[in-house]
């Protein structure tokens, strides 16, 4: 990460790297802050540390500092309960947490990031270390987060191929602790572009920031895009003139690509297939659902090579993780199952859902996504989430939570949804329909796992 900031600063130290609600930070300022923090880490012999901070400029400088001296940084997800912070620090053996949140001071050894950035630079070795680890925590739909060990050398493999594009202004829609967020930080810094980072990172604030800061490029989860479109429609916002619309992190529901293409006629629409474990396989730019079949014929030199085994996508990645924290490591360059179930239709690989999301209805395996797409297209349905509901008779039944459009009659909608699903095999039909105010999400992704 330090090499990206240095490159940006060398090109134009005064170019804005990060714009948030209060201030603009240039590439020169980020690089200088990173060198100072690196001097602190080297001087104190810090080998691993946690970070509880969501300010994009602070986080980028700390990541770059860590990558400068080979210390393992770990960005924490938001923690509601300060007591949970101590548990998390203990679980990952972090003896230092960089944070300016006063309420956690005293629970774990803390230091304010300002103190790191005030350290005089220059006390670090000239060369970058051979091993430069980074720990990414999974968002974890259930239970405690898992640590995923990466190395900057692997993460940045594709960054060298990114063309300089200082005129691009990217909206930051992810938390920096999310793998999707890390990918955006790397991409924007590698391009020498500008990151627009409003807080909090919700579609409403995103729309305001797009208008205020001339955003041209946006990468977000399909769920974020769906909320953003709904927000635009209900608030009557002017349509931002986007050049690039990118989706990643979860399967793309059928009608969404078309809606985005209609809403943003001047934008290229791409999808990114990526995961915390195997990294990013690059983007698919043809605005069609799924992946082209040609991804199965990539040469061995590709960052990510794919194959399909028993309807599941497998990958071999040169940009993926070293292994899980605290577990025996497999070969980082070996084949891994992705947990993504796929079908081949014509020249396309289509995603059917996560293997962990499959609903077993009396021995019949039901994929929630196609049912969810069918229900999402019923007039009057704003959003839907299909999941498995435990049942004494059949183990599970297909259940759906529906957010109705404001003026919809829910009794009529209930009937319309059942009619729309009448042609499905009996096990796939929703047996429980609940109308809710909002859909449960984790990290801006819909949770379909059985609870």
């Amino acid at each position, binding site marked *: 990460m330090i090499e990206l900031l240095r490159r940006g600063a060398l090109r134009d130290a005064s170019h804005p790297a990060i714009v948030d609600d209060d201030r603009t930070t240039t590439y020169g300022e980020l690089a200088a802050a990173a060198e100072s923090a690196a001097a602190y880490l080297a001087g104190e012999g810090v080998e691993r540390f946690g970070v509880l901070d969501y300010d994009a400029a602070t986080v980028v400088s700390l990541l770059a500092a860590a990558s400068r001296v080979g210390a393992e940084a770990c960005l924490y997800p938001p923690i509601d309960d300060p007591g949970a912070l101590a548990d998390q620090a203990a679980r990952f053996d972090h003896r230092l947490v960089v944070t300016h949140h006063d309420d956690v001071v005293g629970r774990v050894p803390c230091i304010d990031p300002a103190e790191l950035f005030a350290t005089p630079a220059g006390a670090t070795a000239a060369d970058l270390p051979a091993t430069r680890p980074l720990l990414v925590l999974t968002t974890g739909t259930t239970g405690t987060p898992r640590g995923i060990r990466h190395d900057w050398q692997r993460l940045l493999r594709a960054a060298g191929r990114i063309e300089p594009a200082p005129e691009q202004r990217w909206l930051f829609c992810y938390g920096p602790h999310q793998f999707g967020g890390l990918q955006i930080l790397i991409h924007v810094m590698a391009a020498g572009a500008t990151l627009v980072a409003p807080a909090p990172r919700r579609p409403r604030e995103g729309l305001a920031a797009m208008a205020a800061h001339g955003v041209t490029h946006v990468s977000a989860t399909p769920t974020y895009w769906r909320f953003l479109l709904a927000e635009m429609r209900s608030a009557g916002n002017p349509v931002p003139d986007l050049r690039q619309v990118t989706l990643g992190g979860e399967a793309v529901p059928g009608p969404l690509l078309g809606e985005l293409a209609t809403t943003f006629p001047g934008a290229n629409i791409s999808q990114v297939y990526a995961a915390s474990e195997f990294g990013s396989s690059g983007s698919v730019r043809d605005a069609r659902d799924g992946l082209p079949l040609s991804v199965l014929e990539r040469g061995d030199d590709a960052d990510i090579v794919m194959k399909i085994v028993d309807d599941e996508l497998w990958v071999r990645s040169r940009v993926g993780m070293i292994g899980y924290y605290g577990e025996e490591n497999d070969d980082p360059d070996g084949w891994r199952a992705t947990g993504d179930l796929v079908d081949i239709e014509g020249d396309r690989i289509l995603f059917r859902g996560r293997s962990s999301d499959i609903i077993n209805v*009396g021995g019949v395996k039901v994929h929630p996504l196609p049912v969810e797409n069918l229900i999402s297209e019923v007039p009057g349905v704003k959003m839907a989430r299909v999941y498995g509901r435990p*049942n*004494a008779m059949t183990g599970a*039944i297909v259940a759906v939570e529906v957010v109705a459009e404001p003026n919809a009659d829910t009794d009529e909608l209930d009937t319309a949804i059942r009619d729309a699903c009448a042609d499905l095999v009996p096990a796939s039909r929703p*047996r429980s329909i609940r109308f809710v105010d909002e859909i449960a999400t984790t990290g801006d992704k819909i949770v379909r796992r059985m609870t």
Partner: protein
Amino acid sequence: MAGSKRDAASTVRSFIARTKKRSKGIELDTSLYAEGIGLDSLEVAELSAVLEDELGSDPFSNGQMPETVGEIVAFYDDKPATSP
């Protein structure tokens, strides 16, 4: 508890009216299965979810296998009153 008895019976009746398009000839001794209402296993699974949603619990999830409408109603009769 007269209230839950009426609720259980009317919940079963409206479920059958929706799934089987049938509203007549449903008595307490009508069988839920083949020769009676003719619910299949998925419809029974659905009925158990509907009962749980509307009445807070259901006989199927409590290890029972009621054969008739009346046996479902009886399950709620036997239950001690609980505050909502």
